[in-house]
């Protein structure tokens, strides 16, 4: 939680600014849509976190989002599969992709950057080839299946705001991953692997299996996220769907307190990291800024957030050293 304080602070500042300067920011419908977007991107960021914790990186997230997102309507509409066939198949393919990444990294000792960079090109290429580069959509069908992402639940006492269904997987996944990392032996082992893989391995930690598991989870979540994205958007084009989503996921994880060196993570921080990026994008539109400045603002906030986090950490470490030195005298 301490690790998340920096990003929570930044989030609150942006929230206060938005509340005052962004028109209708606090309206129920805006908050509802912000919740949906945060939930969707959170699923990708949680997956990215599991890989970053091991000191690895997954650059293929956006392409897995594309492949699974494109495959879902393609199987349902073009191939006329039932949702009970299509959804498990797509998720199994995503998990298999993660397994391949994990095995290539741990058994063949290839660099995660390289393996997932190849994946980035490969999966998008497959999606484009498979669909003949045609945009895929639900053609007005499968509203009941799309409700997984589009349904909203009424909250007693609130008229404007309804809870988006995408919050459920976000909360469940964040809780499970949070508990896994902080309360289970395997979770602690995963963090230890990220901190110092050799030391963890010599201590008897099954590092190869854990790293493989983290890549499987990351791709599975990217696949699940891609499916939710297509349910939300309705149609997508294989050549651009999910482009750069890996960077949003990695940025949110880092902003949330994950170290790219591995061994450190805060699930609460990651959720706030995602929310910060989404609120920023929303505020730029509502406050009337030019949309061209969006990337610059996001980049600047990311840089400020990471720099502030590092400075606070150094300050805390020095203070701890001073206290320790004073106590020893």
């Amino acid at each position, binding site marked *: 939680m301490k690790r998340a304080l920096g990003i929570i602070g930044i989030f609150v500042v942006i929230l206060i600014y938005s509340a005052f300067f962004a028109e209708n920011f606090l309206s129920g419908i805006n908050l509802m849509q912000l919740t949906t*977007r945060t939930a969707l991107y959170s699923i990708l960021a949680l997956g990215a976190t599991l890989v970053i914790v091991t000191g690895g990186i997954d650059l293929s997230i956006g392409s897995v989002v594309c492949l699974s997102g494109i495959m879902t309507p393609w199987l349902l509409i073009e191939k006329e599969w039932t949702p009970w066939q299509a959804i498990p198949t797509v998720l199994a393919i995503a998990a298999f992709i993660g397994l391949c990444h994990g095995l290539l990294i741990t058994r063949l000792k290839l660099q995660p950057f390289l393996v997932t960079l190849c994946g980035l090109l490969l999966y998008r290429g497959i999606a484009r080839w498979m669909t003949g580069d045609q945009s895929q959509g639900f053609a007005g069908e499968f509203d009941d299946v799309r409700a997984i992402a589009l349904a909203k639940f009424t909250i007693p006492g609130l008229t404007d705001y309804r809870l988006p269904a995408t919050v459920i997987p976000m909360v469940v996944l964040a809780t499970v991953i949070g508990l896994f990392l902080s309360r289970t032996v395997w979770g602690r082992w995963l963090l230890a692997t990220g901190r110092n893989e050799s030391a963890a391995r010599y201590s008897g930690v099954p590092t190869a299996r854990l790293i493989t598991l983290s890549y499987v989870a990351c791709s599975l979540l990217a696949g699940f996220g891609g499916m939710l994205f297509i349910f939300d958007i309705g*149609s997508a084009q294989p050549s*651009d769907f999910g482009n750069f989503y890996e960077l949003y996921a990695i940025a949110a994880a880092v902003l949330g307190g994950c170290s790219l060196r591995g061994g450190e993570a805060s699930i609460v921080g990651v959720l706030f990291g995602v929310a910060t990026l989404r609120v920023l994008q*929303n505020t730029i*539109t509502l406050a009337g800024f030019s949309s061209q400045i969006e990337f610059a603002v996001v980049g600047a906030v990311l840089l400020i957030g990471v720099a502030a986090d590092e400075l606070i950490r150094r300050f805390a470490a020095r203070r701890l050293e001073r206290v320790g030195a004073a106590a020893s005298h």
Partner: protein
Amino acid sequence: MNKLISLAALTVLGSTLGFGFAASSATNPVAGDLIALQKERIAAYKAAPKKRPHVAFVSNGVADFWTIAKAGAIAAGKSKEIDCDVTVEFPGGGLGDQKRMLEDLVIKGIDGISVSPIDPTNQAEVLSMVAEKALLITNDSDAPKAPRLCYIGMDNYDAGLLCGKLGREGCKGGKVAIFIGRLEQDNAKRRRQGFIDGLLGRTPDATRYDEPNTVINEAGYTIVGTWTDSFDRAKAKANIEDVMIKNPDLALVTGLFEYNSTLAVEVIKQNNKQGKVQLAAFDEGADVIAAIKEGFVLGTVVQDPYGYGFESVKVLNAFCKGDMSLVPANGIISIPAKVIKKENAEAFWKDLKAKIKAGKDAK
């Protein structure tokens, strides 16, 4: 020995680079020279027509729109009176991808290329390179300053005007928002300006340009802005949602690229704004046509991509036989846009499906 080989390799590399540089600086002719050069080539073809020309059709991206154009291009190549080899390329990775494809086609020895340039102003170099080695024409989006022999397509300003008039007919005033993938390309700029001028009932003037970030208050309409998304559909959807929240009294939206209109239909439906927020659409997205039939979208302005593909191949083939008679004096072969409303939506949809199928099956 190794040193000698290295020295020789360096000398060869150095002289190649030197020659390349000298050649590129010496042969960087202006557009007029390159047009003259291409005309000379066509004149030479008159004396010795190319037996079976190989021409290419290059899109500016990947979409159903281009699949239909592909069907037209392939059909033209196979037709008895044309009879030439046709290569169709869809660059999915933006400017860089399109540049690479054009370079590769030229290296392959293509006779002529019809391209829809993504950013004509900044693609002068690659378009000149094509014109130096092959015959260059443009389709869909023009590059008037490039050394192209002609442009095939509609005038995007006129199509924008049609869309603006559609909006003006269905919405008598109020707040209006414009959504578009990107504004770099010529067709996007002209289409947007045409929409604004048509909506506001201005005297048409294709040279007019309203800045995208300024609010326009005119003729009872307030155009609150233009939002781009760089083809990220989640962002495109978020843009529409956010603008509707910022402006709860929004009266009219337009999506000037196909998916912008499709997403506008999606957002209008999800927020139960049917009939409250009007949509003047562009292109032939399935959801847009369905919404027109349902009656909550005013209509859509569609182009004839099949015609772009067919005419491109026909014109390039004629050039390779030494015939320039298909090109009018102004260099524009116009294939006008049309408006699809509730009454003609069904017939249009059937014809479109048949063309898409032909494009997918085309080899």
